[in-house]
């Protein structure tokens, strides 16, 4: 399962990670997000220690969503060493996400 991001753990899990991090910005009411969710969870169980796979609920974490200027969901953002290196909007396959993470 993907890790749930909150403003309390964001710094630790995402910004300070020494592995690439994928964050899936999503919401429960968002139909495409409901298709993306299981793909992200499956990715999480496959990549194991190679990368961090996380989800951020934009309803619960509006400050973070605003800070990262998320205006369309699902938005998938890859962080490396605390910096954004890639981002994509819309549902993406596991293979695409792996490519983005480089694992």
């Amino acid at each position, binding site marked *: 399962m993907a890790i749930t991001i909150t403003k309390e753990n964001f710094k630790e899990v995402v910004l300070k990670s020494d592995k690439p991090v994928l964050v899936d910005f999503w919401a429960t009411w968002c139909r495409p997000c*409901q*298709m993306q969710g299981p793909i992200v969870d499956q990715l999480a169980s496959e990549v194991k220690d190679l990368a961090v796979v996380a989800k951020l609920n934009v309803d619960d974490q509006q400050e973070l969503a605003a800070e990262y200027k998320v205006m369309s969901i699902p938005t998938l953002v890859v962080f490396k060493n605390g910096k954004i290196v890639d981002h994509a909007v*819309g549902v993406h*396959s596991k293979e695409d996400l792996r490519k983005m993470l480089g694992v």
Partner: protein
Amino acid sequence: MIDTIIIGKGAAGITAAIYLKRYNKNVLVIGKDLGALEKTVKIENYYGFPTGIDGKELIQNGITQAKHLGIDVYDEEVVQIDNTLEYFLVTTPNHEYKAKTVLIATGKKRSPINVKGFKHLQGKGISFCVTCDGFFFRNKRLALVGYNDFMLHELSDMELLTKDITVFTEGNELTAPVKHKVVTDKIIEFVGDDVLTGVKTENGSYDFDGVFIALGTPSAADFALRVGAILDNNNLVVNASYQTNIEGLYAAGDAIGGTLQLTKASYDGMMAAMHIKNKLNDLKRLSK
């Protein structure tokens, strides 16, 4: 409930309908636009027409052929596909249809609005689905680009979010009046560095927080966005059975990319029909 609703009445859609009918499935074709063939003057590389055939004539022939076989072909604009656990709901301005499976064969829309800033600001203020992204734009200044049923459908969702709406028709005539500001000149630029701040048209400049695009006939990509089907470069991604990542949702023809040719579109239609038939038979077995 209908076995299969086919959206699009071009070569892929009609071929699929003919095969499904032969498999004794209950099928409905819905489409408004005649697609790429409508504008093709003469087709000279298709089997069986020694002096070529006019694109529009060929597509009309296909529709007539389907109707002769007893297939319903409705001239309506599909504005939304929704999936529940039990069925797909296909919405047109005046009707809703329920189906066990849906085949998207709407062709490939050549992006009509590819101006400066369009690519770069997608997801950063430019959006394609009000129910998906409207949440981020409550009480904001919004623009909606479009002029027909598709735009009106999006507009009714947008009116729940904000009062500040401007409709941009891109030089087209509105098919029904709206109670908002209307701009008819064409957009020449989407303005903004990391997020959208406005649009420029041939004759003016406007500030906005968001722009939603619902121009012309909804494309395969527009449907995909709303249900969460995976796209690659605006093509629907399908597996070897022509099924998208959504169970029961299929796609064929130009909508899935590859060689944009008639022969390939018909082949896709036939293959998709075969796999849909298998799926319908499986569903039947399960329900027994």
